[in-house]
């Protein structure tokens, strides 16, 4: 049974565009005070004891809403969650009071160590229970509702018995968690699995979505010559992903939308232009909606 009585506050980012905060841009952001909805940081980059990361994040948090995005919790892994890491997350949340905390439907911790990637899991009754237990544990530990992000995948597990959307929707239903819908991941996964990304968006449980991610991807081919998209976050958002984003906000309405650009980070102006494009897309969708309804 879904538990609707959890005392976690609802996410409260403005339904505007934000960008991933990068050290290269700290000084320019503080100097120019750009008009943006929010900033997002990878939680693990701010788990050092002190230094410039905390000084700059404190200054930026005083001026903007913050989204805290974890990349290392390994929620989809079979091992127990790392208690020390949960405590560090709780510490960051207490210190910076982000509007939202999100993590991934993926794993990264392994017997050999920490593998620094968002690795895939099969969708079975066993992993569904495991992920729900982990999400429950995270929400208890950090004292609030979390958002769970859909993955980019390059392969499928033959033992999977659940469809990805049904699997994610069931996690949200059982745990009360919200969802982070990464539209680029939808494009990457659906292309790689030869599924229709528009159908994926149409079927997604938009009522649970608290944030959207947009990012760039690389293009390769597999050994049979089929397209193989790679979630690289190293370039502008691709045209088909913008089209999918318009479809997403037509379906689910305006949502806080992040531009992710983590590698080959561009000049601030280029990143800001991507955020403006997302805001324009939101305005256009709203305008079209008003005309049509």
């Amino acid at each position, binding site marked *: 049974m879904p538990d609707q009585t959890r005392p976690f506050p609802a996410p409260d980012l403005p339904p505007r565009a934000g960008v991933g905060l990068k050290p290269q841009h700290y000084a320019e952001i503080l100097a120019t005070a750009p008009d943006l909805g929010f900033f997002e940081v990878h939680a693990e980059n701010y788990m050092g*004891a002190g*230094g410039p990361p905390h000084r700059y994040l404190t200054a930026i948090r005083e001026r903007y809403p913050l989204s805290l995005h974890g990349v290392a919790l390994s929620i989809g892994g079979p091992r127990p969650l790392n208690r020390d890491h949960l405590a560090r997350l709780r510490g960051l949340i207490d210190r910076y009071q982000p509007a939202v905390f999100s993590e991934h439907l993926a794993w990264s911790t392994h017997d050999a160590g920490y593998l*620094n990637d968002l*690795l895939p899991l099969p969708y079975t009754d066993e992993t569904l229970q495991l992920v729900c237990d982990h999400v429950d544990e995270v929400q208890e530990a950090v004292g609030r509702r979390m958002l769970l992000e859909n993955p980019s995948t390059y392969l499928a597990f033959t033992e999977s018995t659940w469809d990805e959307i049904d699997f994610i929707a069931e996690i949200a239903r059982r745990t009360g968690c919200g969802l982070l819908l990464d539209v680029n991941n939808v494009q990457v996964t659906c292309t790689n699995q030869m599924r229709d990304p528009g159908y994926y968006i149409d079927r997604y449980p938009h009522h649970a979505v608290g944030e959207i991610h947009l990012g760039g991807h690389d293009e390769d081919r597999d050994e049979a010559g089929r397209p193989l998209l790679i979630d690289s976050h190293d370039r502008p958002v691709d045209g088909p992903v913008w089209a999918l984003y318009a479809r997403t906000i037509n379906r689910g309405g305006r949502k806080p939308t992040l531009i992710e650009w983590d590698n080959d980070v561009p000049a601030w102006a280029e990143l800001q232009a991507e955020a403006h494009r997302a805001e324009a897309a939101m305005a256009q969708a709203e305008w079209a909606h008003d005309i049509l309804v």
Partner: protein
Amino acid sequence: MTSWSERQSGFGEALLERGGALPEGLVGPDRKPSPRRFAVYRNNVILGLASGLAEAYPVVCRLVGEAFFRAMAADYAAGHPPSGPLMFTYGAGFPGFIEGFPPAAGLPYLADVARLERAWLEAYHAAEDPCIGPEALQALAPERLEAVRLRLHGSVRIVTSDFPVVTIWQAHMAEGVPPGIDPGPGGETALISRPGAEVQLRQMPAGAAEFLLSLVAGHGLGAAAEAALAADPGFDVARGVGELFSLGLVTGFVPGD
């Protein structure tokens, strides 16, 4: 049916074995195994770790060139995956690895430059720690000063080298074409610290270096002064103490017995 725990274990092992067998039950859209698809995960892990090292060791990367660095870093990453999720702590063993990496043997100073960059990164993330002024010591009777042990800022790191590592580091941090390297003119000792907002890196003369090394080892001012004077008979103890305070490196002291 195989449990997820066993499956995941096999997936992880296969990621770290370059060219190793593909785990079973992983398929492309035609339901057939696809080594090229699995290779995306392998590349993400190994190249991701190598990119992280390139960011942490920018001068080493400039010294050997991007392609050489990435190959060396990928070699290190495959044998030394991170033990925990905090990537800014990853690569503590990289300088030692470089020292024993045969293709880099022609650059004998490379491992020490890596130690310098590692110290810089540790100072960058070190805890905040307010410094004190010299007034506190002036309240003590002069004969008690010898036994005083200074508590130094937690960001303080000292890297000693048989090579001019500070000169090499400074020349290669700047943009543009770096100057040629003369590894011959003797060793340098670097002091790395971050008492305020920014990391500071400076070369220390022999006397000051011995003085600071002795203080870091927990010796009192008297013993540290002796060590410094042994290295450089012209070392000015009062000035040396004054500099530590003016650099913001003293955060407290123990009066001693």
